[in-house]
């Protein structure tokens, strides 16, 4: 058969082969994850937590950026990827930047751009004071004679009363401004653990790999749908190749028998 003749015929087995090679990877993934999911209980996959930074980052379970921390008495107030922590306890999620934290009496005050969060010694929220209607954005927070002071973006200083209900303007004074401190690696690990909550189980990863959601929540399942369609096409094309070859063989045998 010449090259030009070969082009004319429908190369069905070639398409079958190509489809098989493409589907190979997905078929193996589907089969392996399927077997694993059938034995979730015995493999204890729901109890195994994934520690891979790559996967945790992929799932958004690792905080982004760098943490910032402030010391208020013996407590540590920090923020990492919008999450604000009181020691290693998650407090609130706020997009504003943590600017500082101070402790006076039984109250801990932490400043965000447009609000002040008051906490008690146990880290319970006493009040979240919206400062945006009274002042321009806050720049820093500090203490003067056990009173809380703030400095706004245009360097105006205000000092709060004892109950932190009213703010009075003040001249530049000797204020101990809250300054950031470095977080130790153990503190960072502790914050990461809190940030992750219940973490990521191996079962979740395998389930998402099986359904395709691991690649993308939106279109990942369509990859697996496409691979499933490929398997169907492979079965049909495989059957077609076998059947057409059988027919050809029968015709050939019949020809050989009667025309020798």
């Amino acid at each position, binding site marked *: 058969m010449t090259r030009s003749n070969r082009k004319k015929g429908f190369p069905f087995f070639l398409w079958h082969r190509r489809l098989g090679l493409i589907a190979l990877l997905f078929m193996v993934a589907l089969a392996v994850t399927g077997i694993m999911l059938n034995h979730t209980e015995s493999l204890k996959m729901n109890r195994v937590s994934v520690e891979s930074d790559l996967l945790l980052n992929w799932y958004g379970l690792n905080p982004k950026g760098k943490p910032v921390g402030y010391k208020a008495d013996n407590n540590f107030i920090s923020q990492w990827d919008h999450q604000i922590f009181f020691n290693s306890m998650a407090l*609130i999620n706020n997009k504003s930047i943590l600017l500082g934290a101070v402790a006076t009496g039984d109250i801990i005050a932490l400043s965000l751009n447009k609000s002040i969060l008051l906490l*008690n010694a146990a880290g*319970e*929220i*006493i*009040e*979240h004071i*919206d400062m945006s*209607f*009274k002042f321009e954005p806050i720049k820093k927070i500090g203490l003067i004679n056990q009173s809380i002071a703030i400095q706004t973006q245009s360097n105006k200083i205000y000092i709060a009363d004892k*109950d932190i*209900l*009213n703010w009075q303007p003040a001249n530049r004074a000797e204020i101990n401004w809250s300054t950031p401190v470095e977080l130790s690696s153990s503190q960072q690990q502790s914050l990461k653990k809190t940030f992750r909550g219940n973490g990521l189980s191996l079962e979740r990863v395998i389930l998402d790999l099986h359904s395709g959601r691991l690649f993308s929540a939106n279109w990942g399942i369509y990859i697996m749908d496409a691979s499933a369609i490929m398997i169907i096409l492979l079965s049909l094309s495989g059957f077609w190749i076998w059947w057409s070859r059988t027919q050809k063989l029968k015709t050939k045998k019949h020809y050989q028998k009667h025309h020798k």
Partner: protein
Amino acid sequence: MLRIIFIITAFSLLLPLAEAKGVFQQPSEFISESFAGQPPEPQIIWLSKAMRKQIEEILQHKYRGLRIRYYLKDGRSVWVLDETGKEKPITTGFVINNSKIEQVKVLVFRESRGWEVRYPFFTKQFIDSTITEKNELSKPIDGISGATLSVRALTKLARVALLLNQHITKQK
């Protein structure tokens, strides 16, 4: 012609969105206006466990806060409270006089839907409402279709404001 009709339709559809969000009145202005320009010093109510439980029952979720500030003068109290409608908090001002709601005003609306709750046709329904023994409003509040969650948030806040007012009145 078609282009003009399209522009007018698009504009009329987007106009409500443009006025949906915003600061309608600053809380400090509302407080000042409620006391004819002479607001009293703020006071605070520390929430006991029982009080917090009642508030959480009304709000149907946890309340994170141990104290709430209010303004009291000549038997009239003013409360500025926040409650989430669908996703973002709605800041609302309440004036309570003689244990009855005198005024309700939406001060800051941050949601993209349900802004109709700020109009007087809705807020005037609360006027003269009191709180029952079961911490319900004494008057029924008609809802607004398409603003169910905002209506629910304001109704809850009205009940909380009346409950807090009842508490400070008992204390006095």
